[in-house]
């Protein structure tokens, strides 16, 4: 090995380079193996679903209502219902969640009460979703008599994802450097001007990431809506917040429960539709986030 002229004390260092390099390489191989294991499993599942469902996809499938006959059954009501649910849930949970995060981060005094609140919010994120379904059934469907409607479902889903939004938005707000607040307050801004003009724009990409994660969850949640008792056979799309509706995962779940083999294929086709809608929504959100990032 060539000497790099390490000086008189070089003999005190046992570099052991060979072994360190081998370990490094082994670690890298392990990480890449696990990555491919995860991605590979996903691709096998996706392939299976595509194989099963692709033939059933088509304009008719997208625009038909549910039916007892597989060849006539479609996913229209569930697709439209999911979109209604997503939009309504977003409209409720984003303002409420972000406002709560801003209050807790920017305004709330550090009292025992706020610390208790904070602890609860992080714990709520871990509560099983079926519990939120029971809550939705008791409070929104029965007590507030909102029936099994879009608004009941959206309120239930909002309660479910609020902890995620609040926690993510708080992290994002906390990551805004204090020097930026100093700068704004130092030129005579009020707390509101400082927050609205500087802190929120700076935190927006982080907030959006949390919102994307939370909303993605709404696409796939089945249990709470099952508990609320959403119908599967809906022959109308909702035309208002008070109307009855169903969603994609419920429809898919229902089809998988049927003995008829063709319904299994319909379920696979439904999953493809669900994934595409989810992908498109996330795409929009990611583009939105990138735009806010490059703006600042």
């Amino acid at each position: 090995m060539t000497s790099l002229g390490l000086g008189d004390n070089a003999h005190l260092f046992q570099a052991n380079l060979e072994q360190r390099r081998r370990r490094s390489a082994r670690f890298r191989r392990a990480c890449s193996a696990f990555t491919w294991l995860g991605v590979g499993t996903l691709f096998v599942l996706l392939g299976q679903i595509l194989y099963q469902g692709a033939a059933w996809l088509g304009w008719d499938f997208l625009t038909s209502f549910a039916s007892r006959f597989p060849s006539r059954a479609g996913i229209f009501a569930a697709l439209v219902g999911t979109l209604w649910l997503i939009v309504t849930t977003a409209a409720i949970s984003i303002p409420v969640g972000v406002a709560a995060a801003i209050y807790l981060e920017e305004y709330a005094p550090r009292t025992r009460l706020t610390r208790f609140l904070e602890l609860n919010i992080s714990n709520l994120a871990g509560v099983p979703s079926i519990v939120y379904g029971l809550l939705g059934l008791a409070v929104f469907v029965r007590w507030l008599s909102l029936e099994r409607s879009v608004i009941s479902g959206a309120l239930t889903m909002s309660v479910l994802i609020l902890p995620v939004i609040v926690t993510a938005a708080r992290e994002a707000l906390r990551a805004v450097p204090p020097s930026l607040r100093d700068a704004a307050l130092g030129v005579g801004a009020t707390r509101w001007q400082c927050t609205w003009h500087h802190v929120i724009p700076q935190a927006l990409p982080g907030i959006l990431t949390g919102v994307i994660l939370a909303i993605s969850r709404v696409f796939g949640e089945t249990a709470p809506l099952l508990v609320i008792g959403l119908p599967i056979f809906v022959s109308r799309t909702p035309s208002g917040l008070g109307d009855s509706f169903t969603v994609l995962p419920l429809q898919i779940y229902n089809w998988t429960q049927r003995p008829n083999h063709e319904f299994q294929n319909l379920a696979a086709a439904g999953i493809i539709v669900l994934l595409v809608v989810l992908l498109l929504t996330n795409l929009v959100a990611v583009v939105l986030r990138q735009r806010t990032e490059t703006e600042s």
Partner: protein
Amino acid sequence: MTDAAPGPTQPTEGRAGPDVQVEAAFTCRGLTLGYGDHVVVRDLDLEFPEKRITAIIGPSGCGKSTLVRTLNRMNDFIPSFTKAGTCLYRGVELYDPSLDPVLLRRQVGMVFQKPNPFPKTILQNVTWGPMINGYTGDLRELAVESLQKAALWGEVAARLDQPALSLSGGQQQRLCIARTLAMQPDVILMDEPCSSLDPVSTSRIEELMDSLRERYTIVIVTHNMQQAARISDLTAFLEGGDLVEFGDTDQIFTRPLYKRTEDYVTGRFG
């Protein structure tokens, strides 16, 4: 101010007042500052004269930042901050409930240790403060004027709409000074404004401060003895929570009254 005569309980050190007879922008009397139970600055008596540059020197952690951040109430946002005694700004108690801290900060501007421009364009950095404070004149004109005063205009005239963060550290700090000047303040507080800058940028900021000397009351915290000696009219030396000595800069650096001051300004401390 007429109550400068030390009472019987005054400490023996620390009240050799400066010779200049001018109005005080700030008058601190028995000012004690701290966080929770931790007292940082004890029983401080100090006047910051108008239209002068007053330097605050002292070892790290002696409360220099705490003191200057009290002067425009930036400490309001630290829940554990505590204050006793009085500090008057033009005869008005800083913490009087009738004094709006937002208005105070409009008149007592601040430049921070690390340049902290807004992540917006160069122009917006200067105009944002006046805009949100309802400035009725021409914002662009005001920005140009402020950038000229801050000796930055020549370098940014052609790129006003570029992001402020694309400027060098020294330029960013001068932009922050321009942002403060645009508010047309009475006082400019500077907390180690050059500590993250290279020597060339530092000397440009010192030249800039020299050009502002006549028009503004400036309070500057600095770790750099030569800087304090070069640019300030008066110097206050804080150590261990006490004001050790306060006087004309010349006197502090050439004929300090106390051994502690001499040791510090000549670099023989610790």
